């Protein structure tokens, strides 16, 4: 009995099948998130906080010199800068999977 000659599936068909199977099985997310928090994440968060605090203070100090409103702007930007630094650190840690956000870190926008 002659076997039916099946040509290999085209790339599109293969991609479609792969996508469907992936969605069904829940594709394991690659990347360093699987390995948990590393020292680099901690350092990143620390640097963000310090940069925020110092950067905010320096920015306020510089703007104060420009507008002559010493020390008002320096205080305002110190506060804003520290908030910004903490916000950055929070976002990095959330992305690294430390803080729960309902799912496994923030969605990374991959279309698959």
């Amino acid at each position, binding site marked *: 009995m002659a076997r039916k000659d099946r040509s290999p599936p085209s790339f599109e068909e293969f991609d479609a099948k792969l996508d469907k199977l992936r969605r069904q099985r829940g594709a394991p997310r*690659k*990347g360093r998130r699987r390995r948990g928090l590393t020292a*680099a994440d901690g*350092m*990143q968060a620390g*640097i*963000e906080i310090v*940069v*925020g605090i110092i*950067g*905010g203070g320096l*920015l306020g100090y510089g703007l104060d010199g420009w507008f002559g409103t010493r020390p008002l702007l320096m205080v305002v*930007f110190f506060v*804003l*800068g520290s*908030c*910004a*630094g903490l*916000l*950055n650190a929070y976002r990095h840690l959330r*992305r690294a999977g430390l803080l729960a956000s309902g799912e496994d870190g923030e969605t*990374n*926008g*991959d*279309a*698959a």
Partner: protein
Amino acid sequence: MADPLKQFQIEPYVPILVGNADLSFTNSSLWMVVSAGAVYGLVMLGTRHHAMVPGRLQSVVELAYEFVADLVRENAGKEAMRYFPAVFTLFTFILMGNSLGVIPGIFTFTSHIIVTFTLAMGVFLGVTALGFWLHGWRFLSFFVPPGAPKLMIPVLVPIEILSYCFRPISLSIRLFVNMMAGHTMLKVFAGFIIALGIFGVAPLAVNVALTIFEIGVAFLQAYIFTVLTCIYLHDAIHMH
């Protein structure tokens, strides 16, 4: 005893003065050229034969390509593959620069804040320009976090803008600090080796361990720089 900070000194090899600007070709410039040339040579030599079953060198190039491509696709999305050449260049340039610096006697150009800051500003300005180009003025709505109560917006928007502007600073400082601290430690322990005589084997062992650690740090810092670049790219393209 060796001065641990002398290794970071800039030596102008070919003095070039344009008006008041000092554009000399320095040791930093030399090793940047060597880095870029090494990456270029590696990629060109590796892909010379276009073999379907890759040989050793082609495997290395393919490994690097796949690694960065996965990074971009996972962190910035499939549409961001248009910017893959820029990200690949950034990654390999920083990686080659960091790695070459581990070799004793070679200048580590990434251990200067001005170099890392320029790289980070390049990324920051490029990604911001991309955001405006793709979304027009609507890109500014990126600074209004979704679901924020209306009254809080005048407080939240400056914070968001500041946090956005602090990104290149933290990006550059991390790479700079890692490289400078690592090399300073290597130099300090190396200085102890001769000074301690027979007990110099202890700092020697520490230096061996530190060198291995520095090779890891070279790769890790290049990786982190590139991952964050991809994340900022994702923010510019998708605005959330």
